């Protein structure tokens, strides 16, 4: 049982990583265009959090959300078709990399305005509470978002009105090229949440087991108390902010240091040490993932473009 669970975590983390690596390649081939923000290095966070969620739970995420979408259950092929701007994409090719949306998966995006999803997640959680639905609401955002006024507005109201929502701050230490320490006077992020009376905790975001343990405790608290909770996941993005970033703001050494904490390697080492990962299993996993992703790419290639005459469609329910 333990082995199967851990293997599933590894599988998910590797799926997220492989999809991102392929996206980078497809970007250089100009199959994917626009902005592309990769999550490589941060996989333990989304994998750990999602492992505790159910299909009916609400997710609000940012433009760095490919992994979140995949692990919430949106098929790789509809994600890939979206990246290709095709009609079989989860948002019909209208959103692209930054706006993966899927109503059946309760995945509300994919919001590319920093911090804009935070009050919306509070609203989603308020709706579930009022409608007495059995769903958790989880909101992901980067540490850059804590500088926005709306972050503070939303946390205050969530606590004030006892709205059960989990705030997941993925602190990768840089907002584009601005280091946290160069933009914030207060570097202790839980303190920012605590300023609004929101219970908060920091988590080693490179260790999937710690992510799971602390997220489980947070979700239990939310269910028990009917109040919000804030988790700061300390993590790192190994790749540039987007495909346009020459990374002038950090040293190669710093990146290498963090790569030593690679969350996938960490998990593999752990599994090996505990005899949970026979070598042939890892091989098989890689093959399975490659097949899934190649199939997704094939699907995206084959998918059609939305007909031009539909450009005005879906502006309003009853198109005016």
């Amino acid at each position, binding site marked *: 049982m333990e082995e199967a669970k851990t293997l599933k975590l590894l599988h998910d983390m590797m799926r997220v990583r492989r999809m991102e690596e392929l996206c980078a390649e497809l970007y250089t081939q100009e199959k994917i265009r626009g902005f592309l923000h990769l999550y490589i290095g941060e996989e333990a966070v989304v994998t750990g959090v999602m492992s505790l969620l159910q299909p009916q739970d609400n997710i609000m995420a940012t433009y760095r959300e490919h992994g979140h979408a995949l692990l919430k259950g949106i098929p790789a092929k509809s994600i890939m078709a979206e990246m290709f701007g095709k009609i079989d994409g989860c948002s019909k090719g209208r959103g692209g990399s930054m706006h993966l949306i899927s109503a059946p998966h309760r995945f509300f995006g994919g919001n590319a305005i920093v911090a804009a999803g935070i*009050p919306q997640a509070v*609203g989603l959680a308020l709706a579930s509470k009022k409608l007495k639905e059995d769903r958790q609401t989880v909101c992901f955002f980067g540490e850059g978002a804590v500088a926005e006024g*709306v972050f503070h507005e939303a946390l*205050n109201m969530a606590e004030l009105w006892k709205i059960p929502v989990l705030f997941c701050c993925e602190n990768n230490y840089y907002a584009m090229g601005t280091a946290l320490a160069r933009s914030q006077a207060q570097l202790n992020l839980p303190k920012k949440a605590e300023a609004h009376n929101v219970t908060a905790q920091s988590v080693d975001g490179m260790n999937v087991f710690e992510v799971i343990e602390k997220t489980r405790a947070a979700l239990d608290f939310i269910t028990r108390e009917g109040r919000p909770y804030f988790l700061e996941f300390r993590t790192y993005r190994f790749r540039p902010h987007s495909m346009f970033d020459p990374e002038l703001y950090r040293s190669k050494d710093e990146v290498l240091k963090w790569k030593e904490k690679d969350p996938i390697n960490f998990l593999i080492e752990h599994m090996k040490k505990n005899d949970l990962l026979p070598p042939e299993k890892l091989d098989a996993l890689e093959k399975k993932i490659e097949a899934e992703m190649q199939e997704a790419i094939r699907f995206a290639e084959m998918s059609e473009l939305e007909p031009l005459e539909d450009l005005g469609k879906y502006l309003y329910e009853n198109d005016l």
Partner: protein
Amino acid sequence: MKMTYREALREGLKNALEKDSRIFLMGEDIGAYGGTYAVTKDFLKLYGSERIFDAPLSENGFTGIGIGAALGGLRPVVEVMTVNFAFLALDQIVNSAAVYRHMSGGQVSVPLVIRTTTGGGRQVAAQHSNSFEGWLTHIPGIKILAPATVEDARSFLHFALEDNDPVMIFEHALLLNRSEEVSEKPAMISPYKALVRKSGDKLTLITYGGMLQRCLEATEASSDVEVIDLRSLRPLDTETIFSSVRKTHRVLIVDEGWKSGSLSAEISARIMESCFYDLDAPVQRLCRREVPIPYARHLELAAIPQTSEISAKIKEMLS
């Protein structure tokens, strides 16, 4: 029976709250204070804090909560105290509420109603006298309503709440105490139809909101002028506009907003595009002067179109 614009808004809100438990109100000072303009007086007592949320001064934040609640299946009515403060919520309105349906390929929608007070004329100076409804009409994905009569103030909320897309309602502060004769039962005329409030055959006067009464006063004695009340600013009922223009061949637009980059400019352009050869004279506009609205009474009066000015303009155009 007689009813004020304020009472009409109250009745609309009460009907909504009583009809559907998914509806709730959220805004600054709508509860304990009773509403900045006393529209929601006693609502906190009547409906409780589960339905009436006294929000902190966080316009962008609570508008975002409204969007999320709408995505999640509720029917929020968010009140932004006045349009002047709505700009703090503009990100949520423009970048989220207006785009979700289209950007998701029709999967999700934001059935959110935002009510706000608009307009000048109360000597509250430059930061409290804006008429920004025209600006908001720039944005595809939202609908903009401006009730100019008591009847419309009573029924627009109902239509807005029936809608599965975001709707903003701009209520004019100067109309709140205005009393009009209305029928017992609301007439329920769709807001998306512009109404000819007064017919005439020599000039089409296009207006909405706070300017309607002034236009009606200015044209009381004349059968030459046809007065159109737009009611919905986005979408625009151009059919009603064009058919009037084709009859009268002359147009005056009276809009409390500024001229530059405006709704009046848009209407004028559409008339030019579709009715150019029907026009006997250039389209004319009367708008707010291109200055921030001053406090001093005489300056404010000079900055916002007044009845006498409208009369004079009509006279000039018809002579």
